[in-house]
């Protein structure tokens, strides 16, 4: 599974549309963080928990764009027929499922969403240090 996942990650990196979307994701997350950080008065940031809540808008925007990337990589495999060579080249993977590559992409997405959710959870459950 690791090998297929690595292949899937190369596919993500190897088209301009995807690179553009990654750059957009990064840019929008940074912008949201910056606006949020500078837009809040200092007294709203007096505890660690509140400071960590600054991450929330970035997490939401990042998750949305990750969902978009996941959906696009799933549909591109079907649309362009790359699912055929993808399946042929890893015959031992999961012979019972004809949706290996989209599943892998979905797993990537799920891993990202989980990471985002964890960050969100950490942000809201962190104890005050002040």
């Amino acid at each position, binding site marked *: 599974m690791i*090998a297929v996942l690595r292949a899937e990650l190369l596919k993500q990196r*190897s088209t301009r549309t995807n690179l553009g979307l990654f750059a957009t994701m990064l840019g929008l997350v940074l912008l949201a963080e910056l606006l949020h950080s500078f837009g809040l008065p200092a007294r709203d940031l007096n505890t660690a928990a509140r400071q960590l809540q600054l991450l929330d808008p970035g997490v939401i925007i990042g998750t949305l764009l990750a969902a978009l990337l996941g959906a696009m990589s799933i549909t591109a495999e079907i649309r362009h027929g790359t699912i055929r060579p993808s399946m042929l080249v890893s015959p031992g993977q999961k012979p019972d499922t004809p949706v290996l590559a989209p599943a892998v992409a979905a797993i990537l997405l799920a891993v990202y969403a989980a990471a985002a959710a964890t960050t969100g959870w950490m942000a809201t459950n962190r104890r005050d240090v002040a």
Partner: protein
Amino acid sequence: MRCGAVLESNDFHPARSGRNHLRALALAARIPYARVEELLDLVELTGAAGRRVKGYSLGMRQRLGLAGALLGDPELLILDEPANGLDPAGVHWLRGFIRSFADRGGTVVISSHVLAEVALTVDHVLIIDHGRLFATARLDELTSRGETLEGMYLDLTARQAP
């Protein structure tokens, strides 16, 4: 048995380069990138490997697909209409490639409707029409009475048609 196959001639993401297409397959099959360069060289695509597949001709796509099928160094190669869309030089190259693959001990299974082309390449013929196997023989046995493969095919399928 290691097996490679080209089932469609256009299974590529148009925005991905030929090299990255092969590299993605190589990663999934745990094959080193050096093998990708070797095959790009073999199918004469090294010069175009960095370009997006969108700009490839049909012949280039056929050869890229072939390179993908050869990644795992197969003993059995399955090709569906491999000469489709190739220019005369490409057809000549393909014929030479298939011959040398077989001469090195490999087996190539070709499915094709272009019988004149097939007759120049293959050793053994299976004639299948509407899902029924009509004949299986060496090409030289089948055409020993001076018949062409095409004539043989039409003859066999016409006689046994319902």
